């Protein structure tokens, strides 16, 4: 199989959201001695870019976008460690740390945002749910993300978003990172009140917001 053909298959498997196939194709690329960076950029990313365009045109829907992002992630899980070994780096839009607030276990919206950001070319560190303030602060210090995403689905966990911002200020990290907030009860007014750098109402707008903040 020549390179062009495998790149085409990579692109198609992202377009069709074939998650397992994406992993298999990544492994095959390694076997064939294709540089992981090339595989990501010429193959999988080409697919994700087309998905993004077709979604904007209304030609594809959210589940298709998520499946494409999952396929992309499956490929990256195999190719990224190799990149590290070779001390190479793929081009990323920016680094994002994201998580759901302490005492809040809702993750589908936050996971959609994480998937969309991955699909858009961000490096995403998803901390999961019920994340304590200290963990957010530690991860900001350790990973030096461009953006920190804080998700709250409950009116009772919204104050945790404010607590994280205060803790970042106290640790002298607030200027190092853009903090964005989201979740069903959260709106622009709340974001302004607690001094966040941005708010988005859904996963699609979250990508636009993130692009704006790193651009």
């Amino acid at each position, binding site marked *: 199989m020549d390179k062009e053909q495998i790149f085409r298959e990579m692109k198609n498997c992202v377009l069709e*959201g074939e998650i397992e196939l994406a992993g298999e194709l990544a492994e095959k690329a390694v076997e064939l001695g294709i540089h992981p960076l090339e595989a990501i950029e010429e193959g999988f990313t080409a697919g994700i870019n087309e998905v993004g365009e077709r979604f904007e045109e209304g030609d594809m829907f959210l*589940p298709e976008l*998520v499946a494409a992002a999952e396929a992309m992630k499956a490929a990256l899980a195999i190719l990224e460690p190799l990149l590290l070994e070779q001390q190479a780096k793929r081009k990323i839009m920016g680094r994002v740390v994201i998580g759901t607030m302490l005492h809040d276990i809702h993750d589908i919206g936050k996971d959609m945002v994480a998937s969309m950001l991955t699909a858009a070319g961000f490096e995403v560190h998803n901390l999961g749910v019920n994340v304590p303030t200290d963990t957010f602060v530690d991860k900001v210090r350790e990973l030096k993300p461009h953006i920190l995403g804080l998700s709250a689905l409950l009116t009772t966990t919204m104050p945790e978003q404010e607590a994280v911002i205060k803790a970042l200020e106290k640790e002298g990290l607030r200027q190092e990172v853009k903090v964005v907030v989201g979740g069903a009860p959260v709106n622009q007014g709340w974001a302004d009140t607690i001094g966040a750098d941005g708010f988005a109402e859904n996963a699609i707008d979250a990508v636009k917001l993130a692009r704006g903040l790193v651009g």
Partner: protein
Amino acid sequence: MRKRKFEPVRSLLEFRVLSERDILKVHEAALEVMEETGVRFPSHKALDVLEEAGCRVNREAMVARLPARLVMEALRQAPSRYLLAGREPKDDMWIDDKTSYLSTDGCCVDIYDIHSGELRRTTRQDITDACKVADFLPEISYIWGPPVSAQDVPAVIRPLHEIEASMEGTTMHIQPETVISEKMARYALEMGAVVAGGREALRRRPLFSYMQCAMDPLGQDGGSLEASMVAAEWGIPTGFMPMPMSCATAPATLAGNLVVTTVDAVSPLVLMQLINPGTPVYFAAAPTAIDLQTGGYTGGGPEDFLLAAAFGEICHFYRIPLAMGAFATGAKEPDWQAAVDNCFAALMPVLTRTAILNGAGTLNGSKIFSFQELIMDAEIYSMVAKVAGGIEVNDETLALDIIKKVGPGGNSLAEKHTRRHMKKIWQPTVYDRKPYGAWLESGKQGAYEDATEKARWILQNHEVKPLDPRVKEEFARIIKAAEKELG
């Protein structure tokens, strides 16, 4: 702009207003009224035919008493399934007892101008524009009407201009309600024959049919009867629309209203079958109750919804297709009341598998035409279609393997099963699901504003196959002849 995919609606839900016993009682009551009291047929031509067939006729009162035997024989002769053809075969509709189609409404005298938003008198051009927007909407299957009246054309030849103006805006089937004299009916059918390629071609592919109004209670209109007799002679489908209003032209009770509706829909069918046995006839109806304060026609309300569903059931009993007056809210603007009325008015007849729902796009009891209302009515109908489709339960749709695979707290977003089935989820075209922020940014643009934009876009961009120049020449000749004779 993207066009929604839309299939003719076949309701899979079970829904009943009347029991079988109820239907039989209404039927027997209607037979009794037709035989004992009789029905007014104010046309000697019609009375001649009925008398010849054995009806007892009172010439002075112009009332014919129809023996039950004759009525039952006529009901057996009328077909249960037939074609309403489009100018193009893609627009053909097979009318049967399972499928529902939606048409526009007729025949409004005022219109909300799509550019200025102002209410003004309707013109010939408005017919073409209304038909053009309807032609673009996949939920609309044909033009009943004309949707508005061509008030800028002399009344004597107006119905013919209305047919031509409709054809300029659509290739769908057309069902005029303004052809209400024998002479006009002949000119109109001549126009149909020009398009179809002769009288026999028109009979085989009737690209238009007639709709006549009854004169409730227990009566018909002379001109309409004679027009429909021409249609029967040509084998062109005709329907009769009773609109009895409880408390005025029908008893206050809804069961009594159903008897009057049945008599006024069935009795002209008998005449049609006597003229040409087997000629396609449909029932039409818009029974209602008066507004108790003003005595006015209501256009919407719970009585209408019940009567619509119940008469649909009665028509199934007769195995004659029904064109039900649906939508046609009494609201003055496309507002809360319009939405309430039109949701019920669309849902009930679809659930009773009514063949045709007339008519989307009007306000103020079918007196005001609104492009926005037309688009939003079509959207309501698409939701009703989805509801009527019910829930399919089988291994694939139970998706047990997916539920187990996803497990507690997971999600189905990236599953192939999701991609396989997600397109069956109803999708809005103007129904507003924008995020709040996006809605604010758009200047608080909701369904109405989106429908305005959509209508303007359609009028600007949608192209309808024009009439052949030779057909236009023939139309001009026919209309000139009509003007000379009738003017």
